[in-house]
């Protein structure tokens, strides 16, 4: 490519502008959250002169965000833990144990991946209502587990398949039962994959709004994302408080992203190249 150096810089310019367009909306929101209502109305773009936390405090306390935040933490922690437990157990069985129907079960999991939530949501909510699980924490935790389990099983199965069977055999000769192999070999060796898929599942559950809307109709059980949607009506004239609520919901995700960026990208792409 002739003139490669020049053309590279020519490409880098629009890419830099796009990067700006990617970051700026969040910067704008954070900035709005730091302003008084008056300042925001006078000039939306100017940077806040001081860091003011009153809007954040208002959103946290009087808008009920604290409660929503707690609900989200309970449900995300519960669902992520359950997903890791069930996913690693099934992944171990599918990758290293021989039993009748293992292939059929694996294909069943793959098939379940392609059933979008929108297609099953009506009968699912009815099933949940029949079993008294609607508007309860276990109900939403189970709904999330069902939603993301096929993906978790797929990733854990393919990760565990890369562990040589000799290691499993050696552990058995040392006197371990299958459960011993799971606890002493598979859980510790699977830690990198468990961490990646755990972070990804936690993000999915934290970010979801549709399942939470359907499963948690009462205000006291609202998750944070549903809470943010209700803030909009409540504070339509008070943009800085609304922006503060949005910021509160975004900051945990931002923190997780900064820590686990690589792992998230790896888990996302795990399925695409193996085929």
């Amino acid at each position, binding site marked *: 490519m002739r003139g490669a150096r020049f053309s590279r810089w020519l490409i880098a310019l629009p890419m830099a502008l796009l990067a700006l367009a990617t970051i700026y909306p969040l910067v704008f929101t954070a900035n709005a959250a730091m302003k008084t209502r008056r300042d925001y109305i006078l000039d939306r773009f100017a940077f806040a002169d001081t860091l003011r936390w009153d809007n954040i405090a208002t959103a946290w306390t009087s808008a009920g965000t604290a409660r929503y935040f707690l609900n989200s933490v309970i449900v995300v922690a519960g669902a992520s833990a359950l997903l890791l437990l069930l996913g690693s157990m099934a992944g171990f069985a599918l990758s290293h144990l021989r039993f009748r129907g293992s292939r059929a079960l694996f294909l*069943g999991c793959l098939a379940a991946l392609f059933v979008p939530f929108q297609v099953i949501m009506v009968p699912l909510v009815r*099933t949940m209502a029949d079993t008294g699980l609607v508007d309860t924490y276990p109900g939403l935790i189970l709904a999330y587990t069902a939603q993301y389990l096929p993906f978790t099983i797929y990733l854990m199965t393919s990760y565990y398949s890369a562990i040589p069977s000799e290691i499993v055999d050696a552990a058995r000769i040392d006197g371990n039962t299958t459960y011993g192999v799971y606890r002493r070999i598979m859980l510790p060796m699977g830690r990198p994959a468990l961490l990646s898929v755990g972070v990804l599942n936690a993000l999915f559950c934290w970010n979801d709004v549709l399942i939470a809307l359907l499963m948690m109709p009462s205000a006291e059980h609202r998750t944070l994302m549903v809470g943010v949607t209700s803030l909009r009506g409540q504070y339509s004239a008070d943009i800085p408080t609304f922006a503060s609520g949005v910021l509160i919901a975004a900051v945990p995700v931002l923190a997780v992203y900064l820590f686990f960026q690589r792992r998230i990208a790896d888990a996302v792409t795990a399925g695409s190249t193996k085929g």
Partner: protein
Amino acid sequence: MPLGDFTPLLARPARAGRADGPATASRRRPRAGRLSSERLSPFVLMAPAVAVIVLFRLWPLLLGVNFSFTGDGERNGAAVGLDNYAELFADPLFLGALRNVGWLVLLLPIAVAIPGMLATFIYLRVPGHRFYRSVYFFPAVLSPVIVGSIFNLLLSFDGPVNSLLELAGLGPVDWLGDSDVAMFTVVGVHVWATFGMSLVVFLSGFATLDPALLDAARSDGASLPQVIRHVIIPGLSRTIQFVFVTTMIGMLTSMFGLIYVMTSGGPGGSTYLPEYYIWIQQGQMNRPAFASAASTVLFLVMLVVGLAQVSFLRRTGRED
């Protein structure tokens, strides 16, 4: 989040059950109790996962299809044949939702080409490629609720984007209030929020590309468009196929949050998508059987669009 649907469409379950299992190991141990517990162990390990998936994913699918042939309200539970489907295809809102799906299919190549081009530049190491990679991916981890809320602020009629346009001497655009514009605005925001996801998928595809091919093309003096046309596209056909299908699934199943926050299906029903329609019928109108019929149609649409894409891409792939 769309992530849940970033599924390994093309994966083969070749690895499952291949490794030597406990069958040989347990035979060595003659104790009967131990033996049967060992025999059962795979099923014990699988049981909770299978129970959750069957009960809360596969069973509802069957239930829903069945459900769609029954009535709501006064006719609750009674078999009504195809009445729900007939009503569905007479409802202008649902037809509008299907028309919007048509728009999405037409816009799909753009939604795939943008991350594809950017990934190519990052792969060719434009200055700052590492930085771009992590910045572009960031919106993909944000909830549609957060993204939608932020863009509600930015795109309101008296909002910052319009005041920037005014500075540039352009008239204000009613991004979310004009029924001809709103759907494209929502799709644009969706693409803004998700292109990073496809970008990393493309980059992982590039990692499997043979660098020698690129070097050869370069030393032969190929231009960038030629490299893209003759080296990158054929080399990445699998990845491109994967991104097409996952982007389509993402557009059909993960825009609920954006629509819910940004337009509530308005103005005048112009931003309805099937998933939003299903939610309205189920959650607001309390017509679960009718909503199930819409769900079944959505499932069929996705199946048809997905299969059509795969076969279309296969064919074009072969011609190259």
